[in-house]
């Protein structure tokens, strides 16, 4: 039994995509209860209602924020998460291995379930894809991870959920960028005068199970243009906590 949670359409095009999805669901014979997020019914309330009604699949139809919010409430339950992305990031595509709406509907029909790892922001936040800490000016932050500690100057910290990269390795992926140093005029000029090719070695990529980020001033942690937490934050990996419906691997049988 499927329970569909649709985002409130921001414009006419999204409303037409939602109509198209409904007709596709009917075509593939996977219709179910359809609910829309509204000021009267939040994502959390709708998910709790679906769990109370004992649906075995809740399908999030919408953006990254909706998908992440539904996933947050489904961890450690028997209920599987289905995804039909609308204006979602490429990370969702990578996560479920889907191309378009039709593929998503076919995947829901086939119902191939896998259990994935989630990134858990203490005390009660989860994310499936990617969260960012962005600042216009270069800021110093202190990062503690596993058995390491570093003070680093950054303009952007991207935190990737373990499910995005490697399903077997339960690790959070961290990309730290410093655009100010990368685009430093003096460095560029010096390299040009010396005739040396400028190599971008300012980016840092780290992998860890446990992460603490602290900044002198509280900075927002952003997921899909919405603030989900503020620094200092502690992030851990919760291994194998969410059941998700993903695309079946297609074997290419075309003869050359």
């Amino acid at each position: 039994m499927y329970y569909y949670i649709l985002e409130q359409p921001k414009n006419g095009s999204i409303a037409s995509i939602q109509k198209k999805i409904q007709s596709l669901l009917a075509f593939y014979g996977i219709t179910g209860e359809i609910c829309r997020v509204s000021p009267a019914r939040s994502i959390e309330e709708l998910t709790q209602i679906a769990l109370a009604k004992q649906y075995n699949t809740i399908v999030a139809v919408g953006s990254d924020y909706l998908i992440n919010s539904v996933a947050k409430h489904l961890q450690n339950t028997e209920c599987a998460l289905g995804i039909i992305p609308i204006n979602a990031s490429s990370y969702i595509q990578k996560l479920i291995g889907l191309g378009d709406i039709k593929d998503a509907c076919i995947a829901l029909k086939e119902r191939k379930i896998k259990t994935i790892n989630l990134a858990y922001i203490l005390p009660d936040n989860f994310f499936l894809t990617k969260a960012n800490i962005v600042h216009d000016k270069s800021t110093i932050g202190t990062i503690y991870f596993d058995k390491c500690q570093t003070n680093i100057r950054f303009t952007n910290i991207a935190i990737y959920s373990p499910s995005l990269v490697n399903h077997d390795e339960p690790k959070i992926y961290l990309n730290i960028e410093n655009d100010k140093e990368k685009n430093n005029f003096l460095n560029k000029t010096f390299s040009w005068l010396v005739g040396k090719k400028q190599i971008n070695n300012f980016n840092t990529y780290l992998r860890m199970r446990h992460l603490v980020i602290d900044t002198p001033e509280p900075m927002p942690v952003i997921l899909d243009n919405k603030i989900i937490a503020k620094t200092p934050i502690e992030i851990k990996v919760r291994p194998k906590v969410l059941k998700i419906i993903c695309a079946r691997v297609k074997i290419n049988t075309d003869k050359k």
Partner: protein
Amino acid sequence: MFDKDQEIGGPGTVVGSNVKLNGVLKDANDITIHGTVDGEVISDKNVQITETAKVKGPITAQEIIISGKASGTVLAHKKLELTPTGKVYGSIETKDLVIRSGAIFVGKCKMIGHDENQKNEEDVTNIDKENETQKEDKSKDEKNDKKIEDEKDTKNNEKEEKKEGGFWFKHKSDDEKPKYELEK
């Protein structure tokens, strides 16, 4: 439906040139260091220390390429390469070693996993043992010589004492025979 794709995770662990890390840096994948690491670096695959990098602490990996500065024990299970800008202050242990012209290496080196090397080591230990036995023999001989000299000295002293007392001794022959003839 989706926005543009971005790079996720990057090529293994990379420490940027503006970063100073303290602690144990451990990864199952490749590690590239452009910045400074104060502590141990462990990888199940390869470690690359670039020109701008400084590592203070042991490094362990399958293959290691050092173009920067490394202080501490370097253990490469397969191959270790020191490029012309590479500097290593500490002992290295590897199976396959490449040191390019211009590189600096101050410390001990041990080649692992070679039978010939082990044989050589055995030979070296045997030579050492022989040297030790020779030294012991020499010291014994020296001791015996000393004893003989001491005995000679004591006998000469007795001779002089007897001379003073009205007796004197004379050698019967030039040979060093311990026989003396008493003359009045």
